[in-house]
């Protein structure tokens, strides 16, 4: 049957009108939960960006809700969702993707990215950040507040130890040999300054993943249902970490506090530290000496994990609301907005386009260390993320701690961890 062209045009126009009414004329109200994990005015920046979007899109109202730490935020989202009141969008740890999938709460972005422009946007993120966003060929998370660990070093301490202040260690061996020169003891033999500090409290798996990646092994597969904790290369990496304070004596023994590490660096108790790029602004403001920022040293290869939070969209809302949420996420990860966010917080801008903006160019010209994290992304891998993520990382953390404190050998600890992880993940294979 043939429909006359006029009728067809009319029909198309009618459909288009319906669609546009649904998408634009109707006012939508969105709830957007966000966590704050950096000091300063991160919450204010989010609010300001949201207000800017709303001012340009009067038919959309966005209620940006501060939801505590990452853990609090995921608890709040899960509670609200089970109570039938899920927000339309939220920023949650990228590693919680499998948990949210397991709870059947999130939607793939591919369903909303229908136009060519949308698809281009979706493909415009650094691939290493997308590793924690994709599974089964679908994209569930959009990188937003992402970070990666880097090496900070004290140039004055390097000079004092007779090292070139502009060259950080490039390999594991160099970190040990330089570390030995940097250790400073007082007259009674107590260490006043250690060579390096790799924090191991709270979430030791994250920085350890730097070491394991450099030893050319990944900790979990892309489907999130199998771990490689007892791989010989993982054991070797853990042995190196343990040896730093044992055999080589370049790092303080025992568990090293994450929170007080920048402070120890400022006070000269360590000449080098491994910590997140999220600390850049903090170090820049508070270090009383000239410092350098470099990539983590390499062993078999260069390597680092990524970390931080992604945007997720939740089931249980109308199509118009979800469409608006998608549009907002697209906007806030756009170059100009993303540049504002990166400059305010120190997070790594997740799209090459952001680094091309004038604002970012001015920022990096003024403060070149901000570029190190971006350049390291080429070698970065997905942060450890599996189904039952909280339990699996807990098991792994406990194993690392047992080895670091000397309760078990690295091999014993990791073998046990692998067995426990297998017992849990079996159900997801």
């Amino acid at each position: 049957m043939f429909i006359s062209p006029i009728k067809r045009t009319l029909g198309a126009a009618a459909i288009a009108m319906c669609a546009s009414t649904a998408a634009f004329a109707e006012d939508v109200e969105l709830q957007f939960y966000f966590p704050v994990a950096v000091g300063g005015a991160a919450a204010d920046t989010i609010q300001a960006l949201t207000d800017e979007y709303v001012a340009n899109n009067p038919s959309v109202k966005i209620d940006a809700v501060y939801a505590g730490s990452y853990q609090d935020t995921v608890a709040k989202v899960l509670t609200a969702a089970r109570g039938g009141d899920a927000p339309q969008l939220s920023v949650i740890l990228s590693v919680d993707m499998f948990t949210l999938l397991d709870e059947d709460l999130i939607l793939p972005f591919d369903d909303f990215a229908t136009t060519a422009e949308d698809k281009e946007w979706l493909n415009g993120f650094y691939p290493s950040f997308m590793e924690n966003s994709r599974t089964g060929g679908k994209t569930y998370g959009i990188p937003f507040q992402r970070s990666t660990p880097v090496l900070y070093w004290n140039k004055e301490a390097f000079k004092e130890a007779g090292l070139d202040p502009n060259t950080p260690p490039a390999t594991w061996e160099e970190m040990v040999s330089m570390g030995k020169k940097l250790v400073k003891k007082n007259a009674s033999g107590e260490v006043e300054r250690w060579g390096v500090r790799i924090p191991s409290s709270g979430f030791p798996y994250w920085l350890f993943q730097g070491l394991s990646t450099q030893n050319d092994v990944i900790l979990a597969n892309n489907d999130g249902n199998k771990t490689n904790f007892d791989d010989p290369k993982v054991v070797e990496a853990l042995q190196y970490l343990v040896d730093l304070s044992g055999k080589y004596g370049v790092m303080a023994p025992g568990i090293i506090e994450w929170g007080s590490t920048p402070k120890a660096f400022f006070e000269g108790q360590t000449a080098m530290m491994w910590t997140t790029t999220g600390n850049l602004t903090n170090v820049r403001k508070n270090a009383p000496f000239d410092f350098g920022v470099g990539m983590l040293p390499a062993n078999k290869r260069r390597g680092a994990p990524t970390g931080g939070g992604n945007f997720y969209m939740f089931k249980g809302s109308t199509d118009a609301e979800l469409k608006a949420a998608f549009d907002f996420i697209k906007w806030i990860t756009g170059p100009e907005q993303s540049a504002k966010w990166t400059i305010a917080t120190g997070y790594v801008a997740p799209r090459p386009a952001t680094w091309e903006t004038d604002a970012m160019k001015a920022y990096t010209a003024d403060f070149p260390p901000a570029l190190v994290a971006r350049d390291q992304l080429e070698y970065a891998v997905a942060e450890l993320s599996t189904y039952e993520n909280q339990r699996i990382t807990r098991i792994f953390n406990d194993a690392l701690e047992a080895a670091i404190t000397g309760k078990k050998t690295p091999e014993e600890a990791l073998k046990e961890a692998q067995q426990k992880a297998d017992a849990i993940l079996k159900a997801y294979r």
Partner: protein
Amino acid sequence: MIHASAIDRFLNTFGSWALALLWGLPLAFAIWTAIHPAEFEANFELLAPLTTVNFVKAWEAAPFARYFLNTFILVTLILACQFFLGTLAAFAFARFQFPGRGILFGLVLLQLLVMPDILIVENYQTMRFFNLVDTIPAIALPYIASGFGIFLLRQTFMTVPKELDEAARLEGASTLGLLWRVYVPLAKPTYLAYGLVSVSHHWNNFLWPLIITNSVETRPVTVGLSVFASTDSGTEWSVINAATLMTSAPLLIGFLLFQRQFVQSFMRAGIK
């Protein structure tokens, strides 16, 4: 035996001082870091310069004035409702015979065994049903029928001598008059002790208020305090401690002012 009692006294004094020190040290550290610039967090120099900049920073990091008001409304609301419901329920359980009394009281006691955190999802659904999400009453409602309060008041009411009860009845007091004129005044120490526990608990409560509220207008100080948990960028102890002191100050000052009454009321409530 004089020796023995001297040793006893020494041990007692020593023990109390040791405990007091243990309890006071974190507070002393908090005060030290809060009133000095950040460089002195771990360096104890007696003549380190004093500063109020940490408090200013902390105050500006979140709308604390509004949060204090919300917390104040919240704890007052909870305490008033707890006293009202607890008094009536406790009086019924203590002095009335009715079918199912034992089972009902058992159910009330059962509440003591259930961690409130388990019920978060259920409570959220209830609040949503009543359309109360993001209101102060929503934070308060799950806590106003307190099993602990009912139990405590019932035990106190049961110790009120029957003679007083009967004398008042002979004078023509109504049941509610009897409760108001005889039982409540005699249970004052219990009210004070319970009030202290309740206020400090709800002043410090964090997870439920965070989950059930979304806006500045309804959130308590603990939510404001959590802004300082900046794991990604290094911990600023001086600002955190200034904020902690600031948010706990009303409770601390209140306790120090009324310390004697509190201690006495706990003792009386305990002895009976």
